[in-house]
């Protein structure tokens, strides 16, 4: 391992199937929801990996697996070389210091019965050796200051803050243990438009200040592009394309990535009549019963017989430099196409 490309997080063949049970007393498994179905990637120190995909693609389950909030069916999640999926007890607790999360909904992610000081200070109570008891209040106030909140408001309750401020409280809690990795699960999508940019800027500033690595999960592609160094596109539990931001946005090779990018409305009315759109038909299939072969083939305009028979691997395809899980991967610039 060399310093600049050192992987801090290695995910290998991660699978999570939720069993579908039938019967009340004698449960029989009749199937499984394949929420995450063989996902592998690396995250380097100080890097941001964006994860985009539609609802049901497994991105939130992925976040839970990385946080060891769910046990995977198989596969591994190594943080600094140690597998968090097999860690238990004190070891798991110690590993959690290094990976924290910021959740989507600032209204439900803070305990309404606790003061801001208790919420942000809770990490120190759980990991009592991180900050000495006498210095905790001061540490909490420093954290509030770091995220741009008034440290004097330490005794207030969450409902006395606006959505953007609550999200800052959640970020302060995530920072308390000085983790190297923060999983951001849709951190701005519940916020007002004028507040989103503030929180994005805060996240970027904190990344520079503390050399954090982010997994940035979102459905808003322009937001993901702005903050991410590399981007993984997910569809029905699998990564279908993985590359740096220009590779994904300017040279996408997977039809789903192309459709997703072209579906995003461009905030500029000029030339809207001539803009080319790929409009996908139908909804994503159920992850309980995904199509055979390539999961995307049922909505794909390029689908052929081989797509139903053979599952395409996520690998570098001819004509492009980044991996794509499509038999017919081909560069097509949909964003700049007129």
């Amino acid at each position, binding site marked *: 391992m060399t310093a600049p490309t050192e992987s801090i997080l290695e995910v290998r063949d991660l699978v999570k199937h939720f069993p579908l049970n039938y019967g009340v007393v004698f449960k029989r498994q009749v199937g499984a929801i394949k929420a995450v179905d063989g996902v592998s990637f690396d995250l380097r120190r100080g890097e941001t990996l964006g994860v985009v995909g539609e609802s049901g693609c497994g991105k939130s389950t992925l976040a839970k697996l990385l946080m060891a909030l769910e046990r995977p069916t198989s596969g591994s999640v190594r943080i600094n070389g140690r597998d968090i999926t097999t860690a238990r007890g004190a070891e798991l607790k110690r590993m959690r210091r290094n990976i924290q999360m910021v959740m989507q909904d600032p209204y439900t992610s803070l305990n309404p019965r606790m003061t801001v000081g208790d919420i942000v200070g809770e*990490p120190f109570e759980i990991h009592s050796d991180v900050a000495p008891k006498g210095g905790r209040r001061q540490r909490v106030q420093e954290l509030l200051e770091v995220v741009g909140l008034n440290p004097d408001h330490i005794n207030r309750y969450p409902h006395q803050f606006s959505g953007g401020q609550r999200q800052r409280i959640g970020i302060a809690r995530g920072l308390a243990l000085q983790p190297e990795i923060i999983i951001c699960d849709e951190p701005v999508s519940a916020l007002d438009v004028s507040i989103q940019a503030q929180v994005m800027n805060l996240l970027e500033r904190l990344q520079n200040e503390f050399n954090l690595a982010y997994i940035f999960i979102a459905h808003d592609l322009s937001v993901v592009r702005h903050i991410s160094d590399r981007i993984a596109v997910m569809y029905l539990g699998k990564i279908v394309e993985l590359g740096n931001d220009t590779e994904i946005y300017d040279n996408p090779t997977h039809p789903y990535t192309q459709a997703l990018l072209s579906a995003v409305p461009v905030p500029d009315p000029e030339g809207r009549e001539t803009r080319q759109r790929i409009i996908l038909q139908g909804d994503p299939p159920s992850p309980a019963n995904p199509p055979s072969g390539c999961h995307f083939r049922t909505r794909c305009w390029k689908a052929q017989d081989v797509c139903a028979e053979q599952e395409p691997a996520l690998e570098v395809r001819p004509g492009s430099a980044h991996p794509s899980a499509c038999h017919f991967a081909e560069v097509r610039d949909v964003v700049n196409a007129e």
Partner: protein
Amino acid sequence: MSNATVAESAKDKDARPEKARRPASLWSDAWHDLRRNKVFILGSILVLILLLMAAFPSLFSSVNAYDPSTCDLSNAREGITSKHWFGTDNLGCDTYSRVIYGARVSVIVGIATSLISAVVGGGLGLLAGYYSRWVDVLLSRLAEIFFAIPSVLGALLFLSAIGRENAGAFTVVLSLAVLAWPLILRIMRAAVISAKNQDYVTAARALGAGPGRIMLRHIMPNAIAPVIVTATLNLGVFIAAEAGLSFLGVGVQPPTISWGLMIGDARRRFLEAPEPLIFPAIFLSITVLAFVMLGDAVRDALDPKLR
């Protein structure tokens, strides 16, 4: 520029005067509501008087009803007089002082039963809701067995089985609590199940919080409200049940003074001397009503749907 923008924006927000808002927890918000609720005020005044009566009966009556020498058989079943405001009973004892002294048993039984059933039911409900799987199955089935027994009938059976000589306030509390905790368990379990799926619980787990901390710091404070409401409403129910059991002769036993016993003693000579029956009955009704009013007000204040 970045730091400046963020800091400035924060200051901007925080500098805003928050007029109509009170810097308050949800509990103090509830308290704020309660203080303005007329039903709550009336209910609590009545309850306070009752508690005073139970604790210091001598404040209300110069006659010690537990002192047999105050009874005078020659004055038995006397109507309302200036000396005996509520008349006298079969044995010539002063009904007024006996009604005052009878409050103690009612209050003790009501509060103790409610507390025990809330602690047992609440605690087990917390465990059942949090752990689910076999813990839940075990506790919920156990609760269902008790739940299937009609409560007053069950207490009646239990108390008749242990016999009059062993009966008393303690056995009444025990028999009522044994039958009341399953309801609290169900309420608590449902509240815990909805609270444990909240994001803040996930956040606490992600921080490495253990089950104890998650249950006590995160789930319980957010799930306890319906239990408090039910326990408050139950106070009145248990007081009425105690009176009923004592009336039937299986509850507290003489010489302990209880409204239920007094009503039972006076019922055979009701037409001759109605006062020894009517006054304890009035006190009993007002007491039950006061606790129901209190419970209703607490429910309104804590009900999240009205927030």
